[in-house]
């Protein structure tokens, strides 16, 4: 540290190289901080719990091959469920309109009064029977499950508002922040009050899009069976360790029951590994892209530092020899270049910190990114300073090996 003043003095005489490297460090810091934060957000999104028993679940998109009436469809569904639940590898099954992370689904406005114009909030809506909670493996933390006699069939273009519902804890707390939601009511696009009879711990929404981020985790379950002419989703819970067997046996059994159906290639039969894979494909892609950008930028910055320092070492070879002749040890020369780089890096990260927050502000305004936490900037500063010290080490070591006799060589 004792060499700071003369090093600063020398750097002032090499403004172009110094400013270029400092700016490169600054830009890298600004981009890397924000990129790391985007990566963190995406990974956190990917890792969000669904609340369901993912390892043992799979979904079947069952499309009917014939036009059924509501009653016929209800009967077919009832028969299919009996068939599925009888399979030795199956623990339970439920008919539904969708499942967490499916990528889109039913979504309703929620109000607290029947005549309320503006919504209080928004919730993902799941339709299921009395087997829904057990099939998905949801954790009921208050109240009760549906009774079989509460489940209604809903045909095409019917507007059925069941009087009871089970909601996710997130939705319950949103509607009743004091934690007393059980037994209370709300409204959803009708004047019929809906009473909360049960609360489950976590139930992820069907979609993973950014528009629904403010309503994250807000889900409700209605005791409804979609008896519709097009088809229905069956979600099946396999017995532990028998997922593959269940996925193989279930379509066979259903085809044996009734061949007038099909399971589409895309999501006809998917387990949660595939569901997650598809749901977070873009998030994963963005995280990888940001990671690659970070690595490339850091590599370019390191290369810039190595290049400039190597050039300076070559340019100052005689000067280093003079310093050695005047008493500098190997370590003194090494410290000189490390300190020089540290000073440039500190200048770079100081500018970079301002740029990082400015870039974050722009991203917030244009791409709905959250405020950049200080820890990311601090981490970026540490990474870049360590990168600088690492990058400069090899040329600095070369400089420290310049012999004192170099002072006597012709310029």
């Amino acid at each position, binding site marked *: 540290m004792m060499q700071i003043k003369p090093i600063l003095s020398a750097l002032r005489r090499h403004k172009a190289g110094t400013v270029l490297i400092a700016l490169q460090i600054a830009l890298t810091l600004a981009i890397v901080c924000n990129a790391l934060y985007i990566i963190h957000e995406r990974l956190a999104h990917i890792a969000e719990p669904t609340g369901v028993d993912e390892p043992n679940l799979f979904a079947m998109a069952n499309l009917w091959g014939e036009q059924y009436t509501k009653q016929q469809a209800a009967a077919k569904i009832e028969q299919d469920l009996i068939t599925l639940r009888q399979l030795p590898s199956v623990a339970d099954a439920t008919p539904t309109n969708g499942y967490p992370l499916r990528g889109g689904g039913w979504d309703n406005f929620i109000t607290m009064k029947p005549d309320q114009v503006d919504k209080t909030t928004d919730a993902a809506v799941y339709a299921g029977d009395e087997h829904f909670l057990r099939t998905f493996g949801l954790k009921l933390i208050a109240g009760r499950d549906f009774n079989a006699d509460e489940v209604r069939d809903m045909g095409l273009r019917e507007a059925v508002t069941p009087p009871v519902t089970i909601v996710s804890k997130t939705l319950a707390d949103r509607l009743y922040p004091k934690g007393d939601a059980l037994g209370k009511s709300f409204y959803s696009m009708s004047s019929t009050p809906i009473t909360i009879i049960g609360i489950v711990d976590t139930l992820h929404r069907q979609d993973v899009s950014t528009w629904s981020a403010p309503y994250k985790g807000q889900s409700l379950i209605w005791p409804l069976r979609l008896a519709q002419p097009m088809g229905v989703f069956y979600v099946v819970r396999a017995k532990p360790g028998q997922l593959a067997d269940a996925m193989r046996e279930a379509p066979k059994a259903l085809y044996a029951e009734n061949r007038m159906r099909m399971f589409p290639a895309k999501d006809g039969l998917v387990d949660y590994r595939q569901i997650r894979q598809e749901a977070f494909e873009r998030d994963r892609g963005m995280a990888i892209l940001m990671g690659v950008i970070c690595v490339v930028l850091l590599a370019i910055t390191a290369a810039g530092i190595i290049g400039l320092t190597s050039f300076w070492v070559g340019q100052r070879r005689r000067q280093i020899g003079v310093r*050695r002749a005047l*008493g500098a040890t190997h370590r003194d020369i090494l410290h000189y270049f490390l300190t020089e780089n540290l000073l440039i890096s500190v200048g770079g990260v100081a500018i970079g910190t301002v740029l990082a927050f400015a870039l974050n502000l722009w991203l917030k305004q244009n791409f709905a990114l959250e405020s950049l936490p200080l820890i990311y900037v601090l981490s970026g500063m540490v990474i870049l300073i360590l990168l600088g010290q690492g990058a400069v080490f090899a040329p600095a070591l070369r400089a420290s090996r310049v012999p004192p006799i170099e002072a006597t060589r012709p310029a």
Partner: protein
Amino acid sequence: MLKMTHLSKVYRTEVVETYALRDFNIDVKEGEFVAVTGPSGSGKTTFLTIAGLLETFTGGEYHLDGIEVSQLNDNARSKIRNEKIGFIFQAFNLIPDLNVFDNVEVPLRYRGMKAPERKERIMGALDRVGLASRAKHYPAELSGGQQQRVAIARALAGSPRLLLADEPTGNLDTQMARGVLELLEEIHREGATIVMVTHDPELAARAQRNVHIIDGQVVDLAEDPRFHTAYTAAAGQIRS
């Protein structure tokens, strides 16, 4: 102060061995002003670089201020260079990125000296060479003679036991050279030990003692008929 006994320096390549110094003997007493002369390639500069611990030697012994230096490691050699030796180079060897003050400060920083003492010594040395008013100037803003005076100030600031000068006036015009030489003589009169390598007989004649090197060995000019007449004539002319 400086004693070399049967010292040799050999440069080896895959095919040839070249003796830069061979059976080299010299003894410089404390307070002496010795001029080392000789033709180009005779080994003068090699002698000076070994004397200044800028490079190692191949054989023999070298005692500097009572210390046998052949077994010293690099750090110890750096410490001796820093504390006991002051260098004055032909090309001045000032650091162009540093101003005069910072240039003179370089060896003092490596000594770990505190800032107030450094400042006192630097200003004292610059005052001594008449350049205190140029402390904030950069080398490129000074004349050759002034740059060499800065180099002398840098050598003096550390109060070395031995001053080694390699052609100190080689890059200067006559007037500037005279000024630098007078400064060296003044420093010598104050008790410094100076060893100066030069090929200039006029300069050599101003020293207290001359040592002549030919083919890597010290020779006695008085006993060598090839040089005796011409050299003594030149020296006499200069002294008169």
